[in-house]
């Protein structure tokens, strides 16, 4: 059934067979398999087509490094794209397919690119598809189709995700042998420890090897330690958890996959959890990834990492072939050949690029009668859709050139090893520059910027015994740095057979008899089809920096972030430039280490919980009366209240006319309200506002403009004097939070001597605004002990009293230009007073109006809205509001000095004016640009833009506010608005107050 499955061994459960399908074909695997190990067990070699050339590809690795076996899991809303088959745990009923291959994996038309490969050099897209420009859209469509990545689900994700906020003294990333020792040492010293690992169980590389410690299998040796950790009160063990980002101040983000191994439809818990971990100390024990050697046709299915061959044999009892040819520049890879032979399979030969080695493993291989070619390289893999053989040749002592005749060997599996690359990704996330270590032949973490220690293979330590003691010491040191004294635990005494390891050779690209540019493709980055020739071409074209070369060739741009390809690419570039690898350096590794689901990052903050919504006390009433909503900050405000059959324009016109002709009511509760108290409150407000509040008496209100120190309008609103040393400042709805911070900034940092205190009371009060010529009658009908006679309760007065039986503050201010009372009651009476006003206004046909009508009514009056008619570059004079600036105040108020700068006093600043369109019915779009003449050559000189624009039902024509250069001195001029659709609208500059310019209506 499973032709490549061994009869014994491995960490799989042969008693639990699992069915799965890949590209529609059914297979069997076992509990404990990954999708990759199960496919290899079933002899499946072809799993993908390559990105650019459509070449057949097979499984190369056995973990996060896998570049080729990128698959799509499941269907529908649960489908997950772009997973590495090497990291997908097999479950019964699993369905997977390749993400590449069009129309199918076996017949891939994009592979025709491969035949014209010379036409697709690096920078091909820049060089070719950018011209002619108008074809780009068509090219892009084709490129995306050919790009070979998975499909996003077409419905919403049905799964639940959680976030956890974790704190610990010591976080250990990686549960291999070094990480386990570190966690034990730290926990026993008293530290709270989290140890996490991306695999299904702790053990790291021990899971895939036959190492022995103290005379027993190393995995058995750590088994007791693992269960000790799992039972430890101070230790949290997280498996199936990937630390994907390491951020400032020892903040590590890790995603835990809770149900993925049970199948996509498992619903018993959240699918994944994001652990947001703040650690006092971090220990990186994330291991190393083997580096392949680069040779011609090294992308044929059947070319794998030596460590992958070893892992499939030992962990999953899978021998992915019959006849193995191993090529290496180091000792460690020999173990794969030894294990292969132990599994009863044939080792064709080991090719060692080095002239000789005194290492224990090469000696063991020769003792086992494995044929070893010393000083040999693999020139080219042979085969169609899978490896069938190899061409080999003897090499010069430095491994850089071919010295002998080409020979051919037959094999169906090639394993290669170019040494090991420590997983420095997480340390790099902290800004740490990896350092090239010539002796280790690897980049190791550089000097630490944060509180982390890298141990074991992730620090370039390959020796098992050294990893154990390094991990232990790091755990102790981290605990000590966190204030814990390690006393409990003795350093583990381990007895491991001493071995000799000879140095590896600095060979990355194996020579071919033809120059790199003419040899069959030698792949560096298999996921993005970057070849050695492409990197050399980039160097010839002048790319000197590895960062530029990366972007030009796309080296390391894939979802695997070049875990296998990057170092080889850097070495090949360094060689082409005649520089050392240390001088060439690495590119910057950035989060995420492996692709992370958006769902895990979003957690529960989706849909209704994405952002808080703020409701006023009257919200349900608006809802019941059919309000359409406008979002203002987080507030939901009624936009308009359509009646049956009404369009928006009809509803807004009706609401506007009701206010102008009778009475309307508006929920104004959302306006920011800041209670200001203290003996210096008036002085403070006078320093902050453009006008003076020193003489404002209790019972009076004043409108003010708030400027930034650069003289530009920032917010506006009315401030009322509630009593001695007591004021209430109204702000715009959206500006409330920023205004409070602004007040606090000046009070705390610049004028701490002023005694003044601020309290946000926005939510404390509900505001019902009654506006219109009948407003006074509505209030009389409502019942109040406040004297409403005009002489007693004037415009810009406020009164405290009883309204409809409730204690209320009534402000006679107006944003519509009509007689207006704003009734404020404690918020929990908001709904009551609103309904009482509605009932009392019935005989006057009182009409609830929304923000849209409010905007039309205020625009008819030329009242600005900060943030709509202003944009942070408008002074009071620009808004024709110099009347609101008191330049004679003793204190140089915020922004005053800036009003005298040459830039703010120049004549051609944009100024607020009105616009009347020639055609009364045409409503200009807001944001429309304004030019003086249509005869100007393009680009025309922009004169300004439309800031507010509506149809005014009371006037029967459209109105617009606009800012126009020197507009206030251009009354009567005609300007033009060329619109996006090609039409042009002519309009005349008029004063910005369209209705009741003398302001009589609000003073009745």
């Amino acid at each position, binding site marked *: 059934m499973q032709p490549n499955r061994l009869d014994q061994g491995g960490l799989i459960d042969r008693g639990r067979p699992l069915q799965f399908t890949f590209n529609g074909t059914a297979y069997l695997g076992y509990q404990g398999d990954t999708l990759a190990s199960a496919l290899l067990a079933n002899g499946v070699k072809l799993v993908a087509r390559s990105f650019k050339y459509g070449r057949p590809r097979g499984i190369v690795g056995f973990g996060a490094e896998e570049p080729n076996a990128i698959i799509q899991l499941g269907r529908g809303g649960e489908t997950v794209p772009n997973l590495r088959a090497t990291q997908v745990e097999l479950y019964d009923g699993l369905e997977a397919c390749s993400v590449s291959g069009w129309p199918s994996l076996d017949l891939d038309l994009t592979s025709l690119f491969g035949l014209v490969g010379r036409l697709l050099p690096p920078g091909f897209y820049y060089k070719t598809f950018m011209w002619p420009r108008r074809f780009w859209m068509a090219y892009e469509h084709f490129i995306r189709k050919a790009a070979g990545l998975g499909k996003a689900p077409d419905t919403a994700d049905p799964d639940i995700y959680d976030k956890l906020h974790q704190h610990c003294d010591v976080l250990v990333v990686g549960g291999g042998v070094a990480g386990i020792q570190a966690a034990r040492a730290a926990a026993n010293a008293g530290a709270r420890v989290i140890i996490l690992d991306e695999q299904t169980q702790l053990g790291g590389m021990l899971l895939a090897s036959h190492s022995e410690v103290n005379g027993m299998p190393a995995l058995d040796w750590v088994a007791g330690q693992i269960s000790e950790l799992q039972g430890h009160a101070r230790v949290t063990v997280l498996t199936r958890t990937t630390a994907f980002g390491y*951020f*400032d*101040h020892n*903040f590590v983000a890790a995603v835990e996959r809770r149900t993925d191994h049970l199948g996509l439809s498992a619903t018993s818990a959240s699918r994944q959890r994001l652990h947001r971990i*703040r650690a006092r100390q971090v220990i990186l024990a994330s291991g190393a990834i083997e580096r392949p050697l680069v040779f011609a046709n090294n992308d044929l299915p059947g070319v794998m990492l030596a460590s992958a061959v070893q892992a499939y044999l030992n962990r999953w009892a899978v021998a992915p072939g019959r006849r193995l040819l191993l090529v290496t520049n180091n000792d460690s890879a020999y173990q794969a050949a030894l294990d292969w032979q132990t599994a009863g399979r044939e080792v064709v030969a080991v090719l060692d690029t080095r002239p000789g080695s005194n290492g224990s493993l090469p000696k063991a291989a020769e003792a086992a009668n494995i044929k070893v070619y010393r000083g040999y390289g693999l020139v080219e893999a042979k085969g169609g859709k899978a490896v069938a053989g190899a061409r080999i040749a003897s090499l010069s002592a430095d491994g850089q050139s071919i010295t002998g005749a080409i020979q051919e060997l037959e094999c169906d599996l090639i394993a290669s090893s170019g040494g090991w690359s420590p997983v420095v990704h997480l340390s790099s996330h902290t*800004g740490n520059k990896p350092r090239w270590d010539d002796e280790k032949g690897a980049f190791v973490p550089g000097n630490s*910027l*944060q509180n982390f220690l890298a141990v074991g293979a992730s620090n370039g330590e390959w020796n098992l015994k050294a990893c154990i003691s390094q991990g232990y010491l790091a755990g102790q040191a981290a605990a000590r740095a966190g204030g814990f004294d390690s006393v409990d635990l003795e350093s583990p005494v381990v007895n491991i057979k001493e071995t000799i390891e000879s140095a590896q050779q600095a060979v990355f690209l194996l020579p071919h008899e033809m120059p790199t540019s003419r040899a069959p493709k030698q792949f560096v980055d298999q996921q993005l089809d970057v070849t050695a020739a492409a990197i050399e071409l980039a160097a010839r074209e002048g790319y000197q920096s590895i960062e530029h070369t990366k972007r030009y060739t796309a080296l390391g741009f894939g979802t695997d972030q070049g875990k296998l390809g990057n170092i080889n690419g850097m070495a090949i570039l360094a060689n082409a430039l005649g520089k050392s690898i240390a001088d060439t350096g690495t590119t910057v590794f950035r989060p995420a280490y492996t692709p992370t689901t958006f769902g895990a990052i979003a957690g529960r903050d989706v849909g209704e919980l994405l952002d808080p919504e703020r409701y006023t006390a009257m919200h349900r009433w608006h809802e019941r009366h059919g309000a359409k909503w406008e979002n203002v900050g987080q507030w939901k405000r009624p936009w308009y209240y359509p009646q049956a059959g009404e369009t928006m324009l009809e509803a807004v016109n009706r609401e506007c006319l009701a206010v102008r002709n009778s009475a309307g009511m508006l929920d104004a509760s959302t306006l920011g309200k800041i209670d200001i108290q203290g003996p210096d409150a008036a002085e403070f407000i006078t320093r902050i506002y453009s006008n003076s509040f020193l003489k404002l008496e209790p019972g009076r209100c004043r409108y003010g403009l708030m400027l930034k*120190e*650069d003289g530009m309008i920032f917010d506006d609103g009315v401030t009322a004097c509630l009593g001695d040393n007591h004021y209430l400042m109204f702000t715009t709805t959206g500006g409330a939070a920023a205004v409070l*911070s602004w007040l*606090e*900034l000046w009070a*705390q*940092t*610049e004028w*701490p001597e002023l005694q003044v205190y601020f309290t946000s009371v926005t939510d404390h009060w509900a505001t019902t605004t009654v506006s219109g010529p009948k407003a006074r009658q509505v209030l009389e009908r409502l019942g109040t002990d406040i004297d409403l006679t005009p002489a007693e309760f004037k415009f810009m007065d406020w009164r405290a009293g009883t309204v409809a039986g409730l204690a209320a503050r009534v402000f006679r201010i107006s944003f519509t230009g009509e007689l207006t009372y704003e009734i404020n009651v404690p918020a929990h009476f908001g709904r009551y007073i609103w309904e009482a006003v509605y009932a009392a206004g019935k005989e006057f046909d009182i009409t609830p109006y929304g923000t849209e009508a409010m905007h039309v009514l205020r625009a008819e009056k030329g009242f600005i809205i900060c943030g709509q008619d202003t944009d942070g570059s408008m002074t009071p004079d620009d808004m024709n509001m110099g009347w609101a600036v008191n330049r004679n105040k003793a204190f*140089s108020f915020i922004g*005053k*000095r*800036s009003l*005298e*700068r*040459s830039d703010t006093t120049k004549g051609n600043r944009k100024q607020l004016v009105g616009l009347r369109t020639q055609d009364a019915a045409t409503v200009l779009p807001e944001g429309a640009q304004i030019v003086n003449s249509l005869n100007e050559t393009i680009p025309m000189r922009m004169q300004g833009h439309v800031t507010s624009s509506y149809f005014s039902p009371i006037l029967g024509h459209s109105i617009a506010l606009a800012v126009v250069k020197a507009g206030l001195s251009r009354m009567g001029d005609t300007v033009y608005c060329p619109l996006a659709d090609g039409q042009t609208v002519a309009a005349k500059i008029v004063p910005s107050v369209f209705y009741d310019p003398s302001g009589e209506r609000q003073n009745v």
Partner: protein
Amino acid sequence: MLQIYCPYCREMREEEEFSYSGEAHIKRPDNPEALSDEEWGDYLFFRKNPRGLHCEMWQHTVACRRYFNVVRDTVSYEIHETYPIGSQPSKMTDAALGSTD
């Protein structure tokens, strides 16, 4: 994400509780009218952009709402100290401090 010690709350809290508020130790001129446009422009617009230690203001927005000063390394993002408004950092050199205060 940073962890910031609020000198008023006297607790180490997450960055999301705070708001950044620009360079610290910039004193508003006592008599703005006496300054030339250029001098006023310096106060308004020109800020340090150091590679290294930077004094800056933060507000503990969701808690005590107090502004305070922070010495932060703009390379490593390490926070060396936080201290109340009106006081000086203990570890900064004069050169790194504002010239106006």
